């Protein structure tokens, strides 16, 4: 049985709008890493929020989301709150705003631990410092006593990572976790993410618009277009031999490093035109 099973998931916001998700199906086994690729508005983030049970209350949801034996779509708010932070956690895109600016980061991480494990403050602090060290923060003692604005973007994203991993969750959802970071910082955060996921054995749902970044972290990929998954496969297979014309276009345009400078770049329209090949 898989850890996460999403079947025929549809989400609509408001009556007149086209569905944000339209019959999405996928599953994820324990310890596996699935990358979700798509452009803005393709439904990547909505998928992630649906798995977290964090969709706004006016969203209309149908279909099945089963996580570690729990039917997410049927759980009460209290039931969902017990899963979040413990079984499933999330790392968001914007490290600058994802942490409470008025609370020291060590306390923010410790809170998550106490919320689910009921640990006392003494041991909690030790665990927090340990976790901050594990995500690659130098001088974790000092970082724990800092406020978010005193840290750099990369440091904050590591703190978010520590928050997500402190309770050893079964599934970590990462929504464009490195998009807001500089390239060099992105590289180190990605490497660290790989390490901690390896160490903890957690599964990962990794959302990104960047094919290269996904290929660094994941072993499976799903390609989303207009609220549907148009293709899934292993990273090696899908990037080497994309089947769906849209995927072919995406892969071709993404290989900027393999084109000759100044030459015409392949564009998605060379492969796929909306409404023509569907």
């Amino acid at each position, binding site marked *: 049985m898989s850890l996460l099973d999403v079947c025929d998931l549809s989400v609509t916001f408001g009556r007149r709008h086209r569905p944000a998700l339209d019959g999405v199906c996928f599953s994820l086994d324990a310890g596996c890493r699935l990358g979700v690729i798509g452009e803005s508005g393709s439904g990547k983030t909505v998928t992630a929020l649906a798995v977290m049970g964090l969709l706004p209350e006016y969203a209309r949801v149908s279909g099945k989301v089963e996580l570690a034996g729990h039917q997410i779509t049927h759980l009460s708010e209290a039931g969902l709150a017990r899963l979040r932070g413990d079984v499933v956690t999330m790392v968001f895109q914007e490290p600058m705003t994802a942490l409470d600016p*008025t609370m020291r980061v060590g306390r923010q991480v410790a809170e998550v631990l106490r919320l689910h494990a009921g640990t006392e403050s003494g041991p909690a602090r030790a665990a927090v410092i340990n976790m901050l060290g594990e995500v690659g923060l130098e001088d974790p003692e000092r970082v724990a006593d800092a406020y978010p*604005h005193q840290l750099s973007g990369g440091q904050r994203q590591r703190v978010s990572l520590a928050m997500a991993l402190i309770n050893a969750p079964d599934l970590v959802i990462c929504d464009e976790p490195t998009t807001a970071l500089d390239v060099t910082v992105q590289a180190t955060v990605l490497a660290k993410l790989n390490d901690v996921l390896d160490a903890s054995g957690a599964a990962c749902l990794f959302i990104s618009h960047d094919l290269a970044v996904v290929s660094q972290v994941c072993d499976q990929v799903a390609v989303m277009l207009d609220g549907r998954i148009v293709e899934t496969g292993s990273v090696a297979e899908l990037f080497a031999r994309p089947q769906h014309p849209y995927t072919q276009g995406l892969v071709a345009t993404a290989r900027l490093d393999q084109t000759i400078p100044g030459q015409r770049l392949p564009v998605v329209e060379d492969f796929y035109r909306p409404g023509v090949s569907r």
Partner: protein
Amino acid sequence: MQLAGRILTRLGVFAISLVGASVLIFVITHALPGDVAQTLLGDQATPEAVAQLRAELGLDRPLVVQYLDWFGHVLTGDFGVSHLSGDAVVSLLLPRLAVTMWLVGFSMIGSLLLAIPAGMLAALKRRSWQGIVVSATAQLGMAIPVFWGGILAVMVFAVWLRWLPANGYVPLTQNPGSWAAHLVMPVVTLSVVQAAVLIRYVRAAFVEVLNEDYYRTARSVGWTPMRALLRHGLRNASISLVTVLGLQVSSVLVGAIVVESVFNLPGLGSLLLTAVSQRDLLVVQGTVMFLVLAVLVISAVVDFSYLLIDPRQRAAREAR
């Protein structure tokens, strides 16, 4: 370093506002067409009497000298002398200050006690009927002039139900029970009307928090919406609310002056209105200056508390 800089800047703003407001008050009473002495004596006064009073009050000196003289006295706590009674303005102010302070203080607290829970509810439930009801009630409350609210309260609780006295005041030291009975209606009236205005700000501040990434983070680690809002929202929302509160001080004071008139309370408002009707210019000038000073001091204090709540303001001190 940075914190000291901010405090100095704020003190600078305070000083500029104080000087500026005092100039404005002085200009209105002394420099605009209309002679102070003539105003005090009325239209029937003989030119000789006016000239004599002008000399007596020092009105024949250059305006700048007059202003500096007056403002210098204000800074030492001397707000002038009533022309009609010969009493110092301060001696008129002090006995009435307590009434206004009770009214302003209790109403400020009352409006916060009403507005914060209601505003949080309105924000959290903004898409369901509870939130809409709170917002609509606040919208209605904002439209009710405070004195009409007072009159309606008198109609219901004094005329119809006969639970409370319609107007008047008894000092706390004389009879605490009666003191409270006379203050309940004015305080509740002012609190409710102020709360209606505040609810919108509280709601907006919390809606902002609900849209923040860190609120979503708090939800994603397992806080329920209410607890996430209390844990991570209260402090952040209060940063923006403190600013609003500083601005509310003067509107509560204005409301208090009006409410005093509705309930016939012997506070600063009644002092001012009596002085206006008697054209006792120097009492008006002194009392207004006193009130402006009070508002400026309170707003400055409220603003400083903002420096304490927001670690981004405090941090510079720790970093150095």
